[in-house]
């Protein structure tokens, strides 16, 4: 690591700028290959520049934050807060905190946080506010238009709060967290919750059913009712697991997955199964 700036104190303003950049851009450059990585890097830039006057260090840091990243943007702010704290820690400790650890932590947290965040932000807060807006305009009033924007302060408030919390916890406790094993526990806990919530969410979101009916004792019954009697949600679960296994084995080949989904759906529809 090159020479360090003496006083590298990160200010609240720096954190706010990071948050704001992230908030504005994180979905713009979303790509299948790297998801939100460019936005993450873009958001971290001002802080990184401040911390690493030396260009070599700076370039390394920029690359660090261009690795694959994806999460839910609001609750996910907590991860940016942690990253900022860890980078600052790295500088203050004269490089004792390895860059790999910074990547490891953000990568370990992004999944669980996505699960939790999708449930809160998109699965709960959004439908509440948007339904309110829809109801207001169902007879032609323009009130609904304005109500939609309630979603901005609602989410920015907890996003910003989490960002600061991530930074603070990171700053005051990171070294000890890492040492005491708490960070592993936190990642595990976030993972548990993330998986649990993603399970719950996908149960209501993914839809796939058998088509067709048959006659039984004079009444018409759907084939799907048999499947429901066995294991409700069997088909959606199979779909998720199949795609998961594919990703696990072949990597993030989303083009393939999408085309395969389409082709299989068409075929099954053609032969009348779904």
């Amino acid at each position: 690591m090159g020479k360090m700036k003496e006083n590298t104190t990160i200010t609240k303003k720096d954190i706010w700028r990071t948050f704001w950049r992230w908030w504005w851009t994180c979905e713009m450059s979303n790509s299948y290959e790297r998801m939100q990585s460019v936005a993450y890097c873009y958001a971290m830039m001002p802080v990184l520049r401040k911390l690493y006057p030396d260009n070599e260090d700076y370039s390394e840091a920029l690359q660090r934050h261009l690795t694959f990243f994806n999460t839910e943007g609001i609750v996910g702010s907590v991860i940016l807060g942690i990253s900022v704290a860890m980078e600052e820690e790295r500088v203050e400790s004269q490089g004792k905190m390895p860059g790999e650890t910074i990547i490891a932590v953000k990568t370990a947290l992004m999944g669980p946080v996505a699960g939790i965040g999708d449930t809160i932000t998109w699965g709960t807060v959004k439908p509440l506010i948007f339904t309110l807006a829809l109801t207001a305009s169902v007879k032609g009033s323009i009130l609904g238009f304005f109500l939609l924007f309630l979603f901005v302060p609602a989410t920015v408030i907890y996003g910003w709060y989490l960002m600061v919390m991530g930074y603070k916890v990171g700053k005051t406790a990171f070294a000890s967290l890492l040492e005491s094993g708490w960070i592993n526990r936190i990642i595990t806990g976030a993972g548990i919750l993330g998986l649990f919530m993603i399970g719950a969410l996908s149960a209501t979101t993914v839809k796939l059913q058998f088509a067709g009916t048959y006659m039984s004792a004079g009444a018409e019954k759907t084939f799907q009712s048999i499947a429901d009697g066995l294991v409700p949600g069997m088909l959606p679960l199979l779909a998720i697991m199949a795609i998961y296994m594919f990703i696990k084995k072949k990597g993030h080949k989303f083009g393939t997955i999408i085309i395969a989904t389409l082709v299989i759906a068409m075929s099954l529809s053609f032969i009348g199964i779904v």
Partner: protein
Amino acid sequence: MFYVALFAGLWYTFAGWRPGYSTHEIWMFPLMVALPIGLIMGNVPGAMILGSAIGMLYVGMVAPGSETPADMSLAGLIGISIGLSINADPGTAIMIAVPFGILGVFLNQIRRTINAKFAHMADKHALSCDEKGIARCAILYPLIMNFVLKFPPAFVTVYYGAAVVEKFIAMLPGWMLNGIAVAGGVLPAIGFAIIISMIGKRSIFPFFFLGFFLVQYFHVSTIAAACFGVPIAVIIVLLTKESQDEVIASTNKVDADSSDDELEVG
């Protein structure tokens, strides 16, 4: 219709660019575009009614891993403007809108495939510490690409009427339309699979099934799932930590004890 079509094209570009995390689904939301379309076409209440009706379809939609199950932006722009121009009731407007909601999904997928290019460019800029370059990859290029990709279909459809597209769709066989709808139902699975594979850790994987079956068997909301999931996760974390610390303390004590013994013996 020219101005409406122009607005539709530009807005579809803008919304698809997705500026502002909490706002991007507002820009796309049918109710949101209803107001400007209503103003342009001089029928605000009518636009709001259609926007509200079409919005109902998409209000519960979640897009994990950015994998939208339906493009409500295209659906809304076309459904409201064409619906308004032919004085359609909400039911008819929905029938116009829905197929475009499905077709738009593919545009989004093309967008995210192309975006990968800009990530590669950002890699290079990182090497040379080119801040402006990275900013362009994060903001500008995606915008331009969105314009190229999304302006034409929205503009053309609204300008020439949905009729052409509709006729085309009407020519498709039933199983194909059904197949597309089925695929639409499965698409969110991709998003969920992505997130599951991101979490990865084998030892906690089964929690996915617990969450899934909790909702399937007991028909509770995701909020209810959280009411159980949060305490369970916290309990496991804290109890495990506590138990580990107890063991470590006790083994250290044992070690210390035996050291003492040795001292006494020595």
